[in-house]
């Protein structure tokens, strides 16, 4: 796998990779991908993909509000709070 492709994937996955990691993954992925590509031997033209292994369908429930977690306990895990709201850095930075 090419280093440029690794960099593109890292961007999609919000991963900050070091140069050493990029090289390592390029090499390891080549090996792993050629292993998984053995599936190409099989003709699967008429096979329906299996996405749920016990094949349940259409599990529905009434759309009702329910309190399952304590709000305080959940907010207690947030890295930073202000006025009981989770605080993060600005999404859009102002140009200076």
């Amino acid at each position, binding site marked *: 796998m090419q280093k440029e492709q690794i960099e593109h994937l890292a961007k999609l*996955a919000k991963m900050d990779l070091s140069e050493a990691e990029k090289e390592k993954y390029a090499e390891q992925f080549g090996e792993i991908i050629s292993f998984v590509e053995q599936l190409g031997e099989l003709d699967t033209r008429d096979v329906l993909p299996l996405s749920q292994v016990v094949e349940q369908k259409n599990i529905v429930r009434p759309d009702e509000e329910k309190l399952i977690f304590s709000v305080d306990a959940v907010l207690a895990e947030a890295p930073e709070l202000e006025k009981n709201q989770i605080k993060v850095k600005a999404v859009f930075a102002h140009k200076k």
Partner: protein
Amino acid sequence: MKLNELNIGSCHEGLVAKKFTCVDLVKACFDAIREKDEELNSFISLMEDQAYESAEKVDKKISEGKKIGVLEGIPIAVKDNILVRGVKATAGSKVLSSYVAPYDATVIEKLKKAGAIIIGKTNMDEFAMGSSGETSFFGITKNPLDLTRVTGGSSSGSTASVCANETICALGTDTGGSVRQPASFCGVVGFKPTYGRNSRHGVIAMGSSFDQVGTITKTVRDAGVLFEAMSGKDPLDSTSVDKKVQVVEEIGKDITGMKIGVPKEYFGEGLDEKVGAEIRKAIAKLEKAGAEIIDISLPMIKYALNVYYILMPAEVSSNMARFDGVRFGYRAEAGNLQEMYLATRRDGFGDEVRRRIMLGTFVLSSGYYDAYYKKAQQVRRLIKEDFDRAFETVDCIISPTTPTTAFKLGEKMNDPMSMYLADIYTVVVNVAGLPAIVVPCGSVKKLPVGAQLIANQFEEGKLFRVAGALESACIK
């Protein structure tokens, strides 16, 4: 025999007969932990105060002459990716190293209701990604039977703690063999139910279409007791099923006339000859017990690991997206939001997690989705159909659990492909959503070998009947 060496059944009998108190039992476990865990590193968090408090309540109930349930007062260790309210749930990762669970997982709620006493949270490969117990942020767990070897993974601490008698039993999770492979390496019983049997609510997700909570126990009966207490439909997990579980009463029943399949694909290249010989001996024991042994073929299972290493990373990459430093867990300091995401995920995740996120992103990325993800889902169906056909003629399948016995610490850490191959016999079970149990059946150079029994979906009854017969034949 020390109290911590007992199993669930013998603990219950002792408590009821007032041979010892529940406080004695809990103390015996914590004494063993203090004695052994500095070396083994099975536990991440201990719950000593809560455990003694619960034990005193059980003792009070017994002294008042009240009846107790079979799990009441039984010490249990819980893998650290299963939430226990008010206790840290790290999943073996830096990104959750100070995360305190705000609620109980459904399986924990049920076990608490049954009276089990949680003594601590166990070490594990980071986010259950690993086959050796070596990828945890909290350090490696060593195999209690040989400290130079791995326990297996990812339920490394749960398995080591049962093997070393630091607890009576433990919960693990099994996505591709994470309960069964370490059970085989440590000579204990590892059980993974049919997908959908145990609720996944409150279990930190890895590969959502594969994950199931499983058990690590000293006996087959103990696995059955825990399973009956934990399983069932949960409105908070739409993939959980409403089907009755009855397994304990199957243990000890005659297996005469039961048909047990031996798939030739499981005994081919890659299997250590001596491990294979031990499994053959187990098959002979089942035959002697009256089972009919039938040679079968599952031609598609050779593709199971290929399918797994496409679908699992795909699910991982989407499940791991939630760890962004915003709502919970570790947040890295950074100048702006984008840099914060990147730095949190750089500092928070270890090597194997990063590799799987990247792989998953690749197989799901535009232009590759059909070639990899869709193709793997199609082959997943072919594999399941292989089993459907096999179970038309056999009640149960027997196989090796792992190609070798426990390998040396560090041996496979720099070669992910060879590490992935350690799961080759267990992964297929998750790919097809089947139940399976590993029963210790022999040893090679003093290292244990476990036989894997596999049944059709929701046929745990048959599984436990055969497992019980194998266990008693191996003890004889």
